[in-house]
């Protein structure tokens, strides 16, 4: 039962990935118009462009070019960047690691706090704690990351002088020796996350608290705290898993902005620079990597949901009276 669930989801995910890669390819290769001109600049001569076109094989049918590109990608040949004139693969890998560190730390620190906040808000709904948490969460969620980053820099870096305002790491040293530089970027990322997750948890908990089994448990003599933790939470957290998976998607967007603001050498910054300089090979690869990560995150969330929800795990043998 579970194996079938996982297999089906996996196939679906792979299929999506393929379609997405095709879409990325089409967008990047077709939309800009003439790639040769883009590559060589506006002053290139006609012969040079013809040469480049022939070399890149731009006259071949789209499908062929796609498969060639896909093949290269799968074998690890990710081409080289137009802008930086270096191989893409090692650069992307290292940047990916940096971004993963940032995102991972943000998730690990803020999700437990957000869940706690959501639980407290639900338990004290209508009262001050709830209103404060809800309002705060909404503000964090609504304000764009670059704005909240600015506020953070102004307050913690300029005014209080507690932390540095950039995360630019000198070339050969590892990030881990400059952890204080990470604090503001993590915080900036975490704030939006906090808003979404705490709201979701609160809404989910409030919905569950209305259900009859809460009444039953209270009558049985279970203390309200135990009811909250033992009964309600496990039902409320289930839909939250899906939300957290969605948050990975938001995080990626946030990474682009936050890495830019703090000059952090991550994948988001790479993507942005590729976009601004129309570095097409880099663009293709980075977007595809991000796509794969996002699809993977959704896949894990789907599977987790299926596994943890007893209703899907154990199908009833039919319905009767």
């Amino acid at each position, binding site marked *: 039962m579970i194996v079938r669930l996982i297999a089906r989801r996996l196939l679906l995910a792979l299929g999506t990935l393929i379609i997405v890669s095709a879409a990325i390819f089409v967008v990047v290769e077709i939309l800009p118009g003439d790639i040769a001109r883009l590559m060589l600049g506006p002053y290139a001569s006609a012969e040079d462009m013809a040469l480049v076109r022939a070399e890149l094989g731009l006259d071949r049918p789209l499908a062929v070019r796609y498969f060639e590109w896909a093949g290269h990608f799968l074998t690890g040949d990710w081409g080289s960047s137009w802008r930086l004139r270096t191989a893409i693969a090692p650069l992307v890998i290292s940047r990916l690691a940096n971004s993963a560190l940032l995102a991972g730390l943000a998730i690990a620190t803020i999700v437990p706090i957000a869940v706690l906040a959501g639980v407290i808000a639900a338990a004290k709904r*209508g009262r001050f704690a709830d209103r404060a948490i809800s309002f705060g969460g909404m503000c964090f969620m609504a304000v764009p990351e670059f704005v909240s980053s600015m506020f953070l820099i102004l307050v913690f870096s300029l005014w209080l002088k507690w932390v540095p305002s950039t995360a630019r790491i000198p070339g050969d040293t590892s990030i881990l020796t400059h952890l204080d530089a990470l604090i503001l970027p993590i915080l900036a990322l975490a704030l939006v996350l906090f808003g979404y997750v705490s709201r979701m948890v609160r809404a989910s908990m409030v919905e569950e608290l209305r*259900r*009859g*089994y809460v*009444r*039953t*448990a*209270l*009558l*049985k*003599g*279970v*203390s309200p705290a135990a009811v909250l933790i033992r*009964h309600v939470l*496990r*039902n409320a957290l*289930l839909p939250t898993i899906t939300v957290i998976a969605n948050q990975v998607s938001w995080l990626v967007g946030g990474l682009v902005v936050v890495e830019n603001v703090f000059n952090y050498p991550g994948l988001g910054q790479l993507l942005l620079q590729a976009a601004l300089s129309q570095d097409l090979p880099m663009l293709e690869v980075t977007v595809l990597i991000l796509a794969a990560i996002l699809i993977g995150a959704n896949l894990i969330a789907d599977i987790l949901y299926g596994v943890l*929800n*007893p*209703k899907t795990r*154990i*199908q*009833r*043998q*039919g*319905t*009767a*009276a």
Partner: protein
Amino acid sequence: MRDAPILEVDHLAITYDGETGPVPAVRDVSFELHRNEALGLVGESGSGKSTIGLAVIRHLADNGRITGGAIRFAGTDLVPLTGSALRKARGQRIAMVYQDPVGALNPSMRIGQQLAEVYLSRGETARDAIRDQVLADLRQVGIPDGTYAYERYPHEFSGGQQQRIVIAMAVAMKPDLLILDEPTTGLDVSVEAEILDLFSALRRRLDAAILFISHNIAVIAKMCDRIGVLHQGRLVEIGPTAKIIGASTHPYTQALLAARIPFGARKQDQPSDAASGGPLLEVQEISKTYRAHGRAIRALAGANLSLAKGRVLGIVGESGSGKTTTARIIAGLALADEGRIVLDGRDITGPVQERDAKTRSALQMVFQNPDSTLNPKHRVGHILRRSARKLRGATKLEADKLAAEMIAAVRLEPKHLDAFPDELSGGQRQRVAIARAFIGSPRLVLCDEPTSALDVSIQAAILRLLIDLQQSAETSYVFISHDLAVVRYISDEIAVMYLGEVVEWGPADKVFATPHHPYTEALLSVVLSLEQPAEKQRIRLRGAAPSLLERPKGCPFHSRCPRKVGPVCEEEPPWQEAPGGQRYRCVIPPSIARRQHPSQSEPS
């Protein structure tokens, strides 16, 4: 010398804070309840009966407040207490069983664990002893295979079984006060009978006070020693059951009792020129299978019906019988996989979109839920005029006239034409829905539980309206209901459905007086009404209704049939004909069937 009452409600007043201001739900209600006594609180919607139950366990909605009075449990007033003081005063001594069993259980916790929690919360710690006790509790409520059930989740049980589990939890608490709030509403009639039997058996062992809240006076009369009647938040009358039912002194109680359809009553029969030309409606061998999650649910397995002009065909059956699916297929709102629907000789099988205007105006439907039967954004007049235009091609003037006529015909006032549905009561909305169905002069109206969602006092009025309209227009009805008293009242002919098949059909009075199919017999024997003798022999059906996914081979009922003959029942049973026009599918021939059935009392 009687002990002090377990529960004393003293001048209780409760208010809800609504959108437009405070709404009093309970006004100055006082009563007492002693150990081993069962008090029933009966009332219609808005009477405050459920609110009282919720107030006793202090689980009112967020916008409800106790504005006056006291609720004394074993001498202690619970109203001023909160938090741990309340918990200490209550202990585990108040238990509640209410309407929605699946809601009362935590969907992601195994039921064994939920039951064990009763003991763990008391402070007991011996795991094995607790487990044994839980198994015993389950056995006591009729779930014999406790070890299997212990590890299962709530959604793996049927509604009736879930309610049993909830009851087991309540009983395990060894409460001094047991509150039951509509515990069997929403369950099938046969399941309801079993659950009520369970309550009766447990009551003797429980030694608790019971507060039974319900809108169904027959259930209350059966289960309770005393009855309290609630109307708009006030307790208008309270006394021993026999007195309230037989010799009530309050006009509201009398009206409530009089408004019921007594079991066995029938409408005024109208002489009809039946059998003039063939049947109006024929349903031939329709089957429908729903596919979900890769599994096939056989909702209908070859159902057959026939209805003459100007007659009312009642369809009875419990959940899973396929009666609603049948109605939707006849209406064209669902598609049958096989079979035909023939209206007045014309094959109209297929979606309603493909029917011509004449057929559409000839075949209309009245739905169950008054809250969703009218578009809340459309005025009543618009709804009726539009129907007139689409069904009869009426011009604007004609439509206005027809709308005015229909409003009067359903006994509403002209001012209601300008109203929005949310300005009308449930009964009024249902009248509009009926007007909407009749405005095209239909020949056949499908009524799918049209009165089930209405208060008892309104039901009779709506039924009489339906009958009047039917008789004056010579329209035929297919009337679906789970309420046998209502079906008996209104139907000329009856079809009994079980697991997607028609198992018996015939003239209504014959089928009710001398049922031939064992399922019909069992169904009729569990009907609970004030008119039936108190300790009638009730036929218990073995096991639960089989799942629609695993239909029994041959006769669909054989797995539970008390009159099962043998392996021959696992083959398709033949249609048998009994004198008087009854037909049923069973291997037992009519002569033997009739001899084995005790004769039912004739309608008074």
